[in-house]
């Protein structure tokens, strides 16, 4: 995989290049900077991880790139998405990028999906908008989208989100994100809200789809083990700043920043516990549960 990444990276202009990105709350003298000067780029097919605790600014970074910051927050610096500057861009400029240029999978599928709309209709929405599909063609595309995320039963399209399991809901969210065939996928803690047993399935699905389509991936998580599995390059965020960056291998081998070292040590301790203990599975479950709770 890393070979493939190298090839694509050299191929042409990056999908996304972020330079000195800032996010601040409020204005004037009272303004507080929540993200300070973050820079990175993602080439086609490349996978980059953002790792950090809750409040480190990793989600804000991703939202700022697509102009989706909540009211009251403003972005500064520069972010080129598919060659278009998105910081300070108007809604009319951003709208065509959202979907084809960048797709999002959010943390909590239960709230990220419209509770009152059948999931098939929610998948159909970006298909209609970006691929201009209608009628029978649209129905077929919805069924294909469902099949792609391993939801073969066509009756699922008629289900409401609350009628599905957490894993099924997140698959629907992935199907929506992929419907407009984005070149870059942002996965923001996509498995944190899920049961441990389901996490692996969803991660596997994401991994396969990203590889098949040659998409770029921006993977956001607080969990080093998951980020290491999904990505090749990582930025470690703390208090809104990138404290360390590099390949996953370098980071794990020789962490420079004390916070990174702490993350690595924590992951190693977990590994050791898993290797050593006969009932290691439940220990890992407890630990992830705690992390997820802290993040939420």
């Amino acid at each position, binding site marked *: 995989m890393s070979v493939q990444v190298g090839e694509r990276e050299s191929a042409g202009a990056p999908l996304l290049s972020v330079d000195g990105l800032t996010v601040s*709350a*409020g204005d004037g003298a*009272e303004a507080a900077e929540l993200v300070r000067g973050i820079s990175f780029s993602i080439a086609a097919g490349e996978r980059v991880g953002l790792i950090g605790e809750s409040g480190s600014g990793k989600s804000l970074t991703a939202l700022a790139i697509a102009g989706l910051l909540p009211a*009251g927050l403003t972005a500064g610096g520069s972010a080129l998405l598919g060659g278009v500057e998105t910081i300070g861009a108007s809604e009319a400029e951003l709208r065509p990028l959202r979907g084809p240029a960048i797709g999002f999978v959010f943390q909590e599928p239960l709230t990220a999906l419209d509770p009152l709309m059948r999931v098939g209709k929610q998948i159909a929405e970006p298909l209609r908008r970006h691929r201009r599909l209608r009628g029978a063609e649209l129905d077929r595309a919805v069924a294909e989208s469902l099949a792609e995320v391993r939801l073969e039963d066509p009756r699922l399209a008629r289900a409401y989100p609350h009628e599905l399991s957490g894993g099924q809901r997140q698959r629907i969210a992935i199907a929506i994100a992929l419907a407009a065939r984005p070149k870059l996928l942002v996965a923001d803690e996509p498995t944190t809200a899920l049961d441990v047993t389901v996490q692996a399935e969803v991660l596997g699905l994401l991994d396969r789809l990203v590889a098949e389509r040659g998409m770029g991936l921006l993977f956001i998580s607080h969990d080093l083990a998951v980020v290491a599995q999904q990505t090749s390059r990582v930025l470690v965020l703390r208090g809104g700043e990138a404290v360390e960056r590099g390949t996953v291998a370098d980071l794990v081998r020789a962490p420079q920043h004390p916070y990174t070292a702490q993350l690595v040590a924590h992951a190693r301790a977990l590994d050791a516990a898993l290797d050593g203990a006969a009932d290691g599975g439940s220990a890992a479950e407890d630990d992830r549960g705690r992390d997820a709770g802290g993040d939420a």
Partner: protein
Amino acid sequence: MSRRRSWSRRATLRLGLALVGIVVLVALVSLVWLPYALDDTSGGRLSAPSAEHLLGTDKLGRDLLSQLMVGARIALLVGIGSVVIATIIGVTIGLIAAFAAPWLDDSISALLDVAIAFPVLLTAMLIVALQPPSLGSAILAIGLGMSAVIARIARILAKRVVGSQYVTAARTSGTRTLGIVRRHVLPNIAPTLAVTLALQFGAAVLAEASLSYLGLGAPPPNASWGRLLQEAQGTVLEAPVGAIAPGIALVVLVLGVNFVADGLRDAADPTRRRRRSA
């Protein structure tokens, strides 16, 4: 941002207290001093506002300001009286439901749902229907009408406390039900209940004004604001002040208690306070 919000919340509470304070002050002054006696008709019919009669006179020549001042007293009496009655009845029913067996709790709450579907004013009209009109029966009628709303909120709040672990702990250590009510339930439901009571106070004042306007409230010489409006309605062209001033008085008092309720709501709900300022 957060500082501005907390400032505006405190400002709301203060503004509310100031508005209510004006009405209370006027009511207190009216007890010891009025510009003219209520039955003094020396001012002449419908005279315009002047130095002698700041708000003019009504169609019988009575001083409008004096009547308005007495009206403040009545409005406050109605608000306090009916809220006290509604609280005593409502909280008692709510607490009984919260501690009762499930079937009784369910029946009470179903009954309350039916009762709440009826606007307080309709219930009050039903109750005053066959009473000789008096301020007392209006207060009683409005208090009874509002008790269902308070009972429902008291029940929900009390159930939350009763289901909590510290009450279970108190129970297992042998505290009696009344002790639990006094020591745990009442102190815990009081802050949120206070918000409801403040809002109901405003609703009671409006309901009494409506009753009086319809001629079902306190009979003369009780100068209820609602009755003043009813009397001034026919002469609105000749003496507009008479049809405007009592309405403004009503709005000042009701808006004031609503502002106080808003201020109390934020004080009563620490999670909301924290979330807002975050």
